[in-house]
Structure formats: C-alpha cells, structure tokens
C-alpha cells in the first residue's frame, strides 16, 4: 500500500509530522502540520483531513499565520526599580 501524499488540509504545507498511531495497529494516525500546527486524524471525514475537501472558510494562509493577533499581548517587563 502506498502512503497517501502528506499535505496539510488547512494550509497546504508539506511539513507533516506523525504524532500518534492508533493503539489498535493500522486503524488511524494523528498527523500535524509543521507550519499552521493543524492536527488531524487520518480517519476523519474528508472535510477535515483532505486538502481538496477542506472548506474555504477554515483555510489558513502563511500571511494569516504570521500576522495572527496576540491574545493576550505580552506586557512590558517590570523595571528593576519598580
């Protein structure tokens, strides 16, 4: 059996890491995208696990990842005299 091509369903990045294999061997695997950190199980419906079927509304671009707003913002360090 040929391994399926590994591409992130959400951001299309190809750095996909294998995180966990099903305790019952060969049933499913948990994978994670190295760029957007999306995590999925290979047994999930195509709308969550396949780039082609992944909904437009949930897709992420490199720009969105890079410029995501910080919540909460990192505060300034206290000055040593404070």
């Amino acid at each position, binding site marked *: 059996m040929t391994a399926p091509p590994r591409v992130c369903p959400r951001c299309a990045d190809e750095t996909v890491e294998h995180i966990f294999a*099903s305790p019952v061997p060969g049933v*499913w695997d948990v994978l994670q995208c190295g760029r957007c950190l999306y995590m999925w199980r290979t047994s999930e419906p195509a709308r*969550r696990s396949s780039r082609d079927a992944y*909904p437009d509304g949930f897709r992420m671009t490199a720009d969105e990842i890079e410029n995501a707003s910080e919540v909460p913002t990192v505060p300034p360090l206290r000055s040593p005299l404070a």
Partner: protein
Amino acid sequence: MPHDDLRGFLDALDGQGQLLRITDEVLPEPDVAAAANAVPRLGDAAPALYFDNIRGFTNARIAMNVHGSWANHALALGLPKKTGTKEQVEEFIRRWERFPVEPEWRENPLWAENTLEGDDVDIFQVLPLIRLNDGDGGFYIDKAAVVSKDPDDPEHSGKQNVGIYRIEVKGRRKLALQPVPVHDIALHLRTAEERGEDLPVAIALGNDPVISIVASTPMLYEENEYELAGALRGAPAPIARAPLTGLPVPWGSEVVIEGVVEGRRREIEGPFGEFTGHYSGGRSMPVIRVDRISHRTDPVFEHLFLGMPWTECDYLIAANTCVPLYQQLKADFPEVQAVNAMYTHGLVVIVSTKKRYGGFAKAVGMRVLTTPHGLGYASTVIVVDEDVDPFNLPQVMWALSTKMNPSGDLITVPNLPVMQLAPQAQSPGLVDKLIMDATTPVPPDDRGHYGNQVRDLPEAAEWLDRLQRLADRG
C-alpha cells in the same frame, strides 16, 4: 452525600437513568462529538453519554454531556432530578450563603496511580483525544480545572484560581491556553510575564461535578473556588497537593497535568468553536510545556461539546452565572428580586426589581454593566418589574411588549469592554451596551398609560395546586 470523584457521579447518574452507555463501536470523529451535539436536543432531562468502544483505541473511556441538562445539573448539586431551573438557582443562592467552607487536605489522591515525567510525557498515551467541531484547529481539552497562583502573592489562597479555559493539544507535551483578559488566570499570567517568569499550572481533568461548576463560576478575584465547592457540596472539598508544582488540585481527579505557561511566548492557536456559537479566529496565544502527568488507571476522559446553543456548556454556565450577579446587585439594591444571566454566560442579563422611584430600574441596569462579570460580558440588560419572572421568557416578552417605549427606555452606552470572543463587537473587546427598561414607570416618571394592571386572581395559586394534583392523578 456529595461525590468525591467523577466515577461516583457517573454511577449516580446511571442509577437515576441519566447515563446512556453507547456500547456499539463508534468512530472517534465525528461520532463522539456529533452524539454530544445532539443529546441536549432530547430536552431538559437529556442524559450524559459514556463511550468505551471507540475505533482504534483499546482502553478509551469518554464521558460527554455530564452536566448537559437541568436534570443532570440538579443531580450534580444533590437535588431531585426534576427540580426546576429557577429553584436550582434559588438553592444555589442559599448554599452560597455558607461560603467559605475550607477544603480538606486528603492523602493518597486517586490520580497518583500512574506517572509520566519529562520526555516520557505523551498526552496521547493518556487521553483519547477527539476533535469537537469541523473548523477546530486540533484536539481540545475544554472541561479541565486549571489551577494557578498569583506570582506576586503565592501564599494568598484566595488569589489562587481554579478555572476552566480552552486548551489545545499541540504536541505530545505541548498545549496552548486561552487566558481571556477578563479572567483571573490572565492576571496571573500578566504578572508572571511582567516579572519575566513562567507561570506554573496544574490542569485537573475528570472531576467531581461540583468542581466543574465552581471552576466556571465568575467569582471575585480574591474568592477561593474550593471554598465555594465546600459550600455547594455541604462538605469540605477534598484536595491534594500536585507533586511537581505543589498546587492544590482536586483529590479525586482522573488526570492531573503539570507544567508551566511559558512566559512571553505566543504561537498560532485555534480556531475553536466557542461558547458564543461562533469560531474564534486563529490567534497567537500562550504555550504550556507539560512536565508531568499523573493519572488513574484507564482514566475517564470527561469532555464537553459546545456549539449552537444550547449545549452542555450552556447548562454548565447557567445557574453559576446568575448567582454572583444576583448577589452583587442585591448588595447595593435590595429591591432586586431575581437575575437570569443564563444566556451565553451573561451576554444578555434579565433582572427583575422593585422600583424605589422613577429611573431606578435604569440605574440597576447601569450597575449590571459595572459588576466584575458584567464588565466583560453583559452587553444587553433587560430590566423587568418585580412581578415578572426573569426565567419565564414569555413573561419577559410581555414586559418588553407593553412596558418598554424606545423613546425613553433604550439606553446605549458606547465603547464599553467586552470579552474578546463576543462576535458582535465593533473591534474585539469593545462594544456598545444596551439597557432596556421594561418596567412600569413610577413617579416622578409618568410616561405611558398604564392604569391598572391585570393581576392573577387571589385564588389562582390555590387552583394551580389543585389542578396539578388532578393532572398528576390522571
């Protein structure tokens, strides 16, 4: 008899016909979440769900919807399962009067059976993690009690915090945490980051049902959640010291995860289908490094579905949002009769009150906006007369239909704070808030043409009892 752990409560639910065991094999996704999405639609007596035959897993156990109906919420408080909503809120208010009840330190915590440490930590080996909603960025933990202390005052037990926050699993020993700025843990993290430190946390998962209730109650900053648990249980909450951080955690938890929120670090997180019924966007949020996991053998993963209301989340944060708001209003305005803040954690609040004089109801509405919880939530406040039951929405609609004149009864206050997940905000964290005065004007406010209101006949209450008895017999 209060429950000291989740398993005891699951047995009690089972005994009351409030636990549905799904014995057929199910898929981890989408079955478990889809069932939890559907089950509240069975009504006010919907059961909890227990899965132990999940494809690909060998020893997985997942409990969903444990608090997801008024019947289960009543049983969590040790009340008969048919106890009405308003009666549960009133009982909650009565029990809070016993606050604070100090917790009890207990030896040999149940979660001490197994340990993973350092590089051996792998959360996937411990929990059967699943995705909840389609657009979620990963597998989440959203019903765990996160314990932390104020880094500036670590010995102050009141300033310690036990709260439920969304946690994304981002690796075998890496999690993400959402500290919403209006919540206590955000104050702890801010202090730690100002000091240039990490914030130690203990994440207790799979708890007795009262722990989940207090961990999602909007208490004041210096109030201790375990002391409220004792008041609600009618017995001290059993706690134990987490071995790595020393933080106080529930004695009966299924799993205790310890580590630190890494100071001054942010990383892409989400989205996640939130309690508002909308996804939060992907944002850059704090990261937790997990250093130790302690757990019971074959732990039960207690999980919570949230989405289009009502789901379990709405039941969990219904009564416990009403009560502190009621108490804070009552302290200033004894005329307040009842508070219904059950909708989306109090984004809408309905208050019934007597009126001291004209304009008084509007002042009560203004006070709602400045309570500690209202500050970050209450976006629309509806004020009704003392004879209108705020839990009876047809009565509230009647009040809006007949007592509210937009020319003088709608007050908009611009640019007030709201928690950042509120989708209606003009920019995240900022919204115009609305007070709707649906009370009957009293002097010197002489607007409207009210004359005499039709009241229940004095004999009607007696007839209601009589008819109820006849109906029960029939």
